[in-house]
């Protein structure tokens, strides 16, 4: 019968008319966000960072700029290089996460935010001060140790650098082995 298909279709739309809406009104309500979400405002732990610039090398766009200088004063913080500049140009970032994947010391994490609108382009460049002072809410993307703790960046406490690491890095011990100790160790082993 002609028109039956249309009637059937109207039944479907009628059913959806009385169904609970599946949209949400965004600023008031928020969609649930998975802890692996790759978002802006990278979380960076200076204590874990050695300034090796692996992240800058692996960035497909080359938007990470790192300037370091040799520092022997802070062995407790675990690095022989101090970070002067750590700029991430969020305006050109595509949040692929390759920098996070490249980081061998688990110092860089994706963030979990997505509401970053600025009036000027230069405000989109994240500087090292901002990375230092920002609230540490790392995404669990490519960080299985955070997933093992069931860490959710949207809820719960900010993560400390000790908790975020895969393993306690030997360089973060309060006293670094001296050069003599290291050489004797090496000689002791055949």
């Amino acid at each position, binding site marked *: 019968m*002609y*028109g*039956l*298909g*249309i009637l*059937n*279709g109207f*039944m*479907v*739309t009628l059913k*959806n008319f009385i169904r609970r809406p*599946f949209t949400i009104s965004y600023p008031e309500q928020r969609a649930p*966000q*998975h802890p*692996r*979400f*790759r978002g802006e405002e990278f979380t960076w732990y200076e204590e874990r960072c050695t300034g090796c610039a692996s992240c800058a090398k*692996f960035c*497909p766009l080359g938007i990470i700029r790192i300037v370091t200088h040799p520092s022997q004063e802070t062995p407790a913080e675990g690095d022989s290089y101090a970070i002067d500049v750590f700029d991430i140009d969020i305006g050109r970032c*595509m*949040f*692929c*996460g*390759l920098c996070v*994947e*490249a980081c061998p010391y688990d110092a860089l994490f*994706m963030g979990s935010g997505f509401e970053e609108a600025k009036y000027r382009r230069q405000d989109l460049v994240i500087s090292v001060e901002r990375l230092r002072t920002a609230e540490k809410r790392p*995404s669990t*993307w*490519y960080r*299985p140790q955070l*997933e093992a703790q069931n860490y959710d960046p949207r809820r719960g406490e900010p993560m400390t650098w000790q908790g975020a690491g895969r393993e306690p890095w030997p360089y973060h011990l309060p006293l670094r082995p001296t050069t003599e100790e290291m050489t004797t160790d090496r000689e002791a082993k055949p």
Partner: protein
Amino acid sequence: MPMRSEPVTVNVGPQHPSTHGVFRLRITFDGEVILDAEPVFGYLHRGSEKLAEERTYTQVITLTDRLDYVASMTNNQAYVLACEKLAGVQPPERGMYLRVIAAELQRIASHLMATGFLLNDLGAFATPLMYCFRERERILDLFEMLCGARITLSYMRVGGVFQDAPEEFWPALRIFLGEMPHYIDEYERLLSENEILVTRTKGVSVLTVDQALNGSVTGPVLRATGFPWDLRKVDPYEVYGRVKFDVPLGRAGDNYDRFKIRIDEMRQSLRIVEQCVEQIEPGPVRADVPALVRPPVGDAYSRIEGPKGELGFYLVSDGSVAPYRFKIRSPSFINLTVLRDMLIGWKLADMIVTLGSIDINMGEVDR
């Protein structure tokens, strides 16, 4: 008294270059009937093939996300398969299963997009599109669990996937697999027998098998003509040899068959995902591949059955960390070349529907 008339050439499109699909058709009309049609490409050209030559093999994965941006997963898959062929890497079992699950979910999402926009072009404004987007949203949620992104996924790596699926992925996937068939039934009830849709699409813009083969058309457009050609069957890659599924075929090769075949393929994709979920076993997801892949000198071509057709990547390596040549065989581009054959003799209103039924993606056409 007969009116004196002469053909008129009209430009359909392009819109502003920053819109998502910039496509121009130069059509010669006699009244409303199309005499000639010439597609003009290139408005979205971004030079992906050249850009890839100065990026490492891992970094190129992010470029492939942006080719067909409604089916990033299958682009990733085709590219990493070509890389693995080039480098001689065998991904672990679990990695392959995860890839197939992700790729089939992406196929459903892409077909949902295609169906929704085809109906949108037909004049069923927004209602079927919103229904399709509702389910696509759930697939994107699953992708967010898997890889933290919704569109530009970058999920796969040379030698597997970057990380195992989180624990909450599997229950969510099971719920989705349980509910999705009902939603597909709903589309069928809403659309497949709708008299307006049938009248507008049945017998319109028929593509014969010969025309399709002559134009190297692949994917649902070819299968709608009745030619059984699915690379998952004829050239099984990854774990497609171990799962059972049918290849839906059309008969007439008209717009209705192209629409219907996508709905049927969604059901088959669900079947594949269900079997993969049963067969998948714990284990590593990524082969031991160095961060900087340096394949030996040589070349490799790898092809998969993407949602839109045969998606191939041709890679030439000179032994360095970046591909020497990176060539994309994109299905949208090749499927568009038969547009002229399909359009001649039909009217302007059918042109929009035919374009929607090919399911092109301009990001892939222009690269």
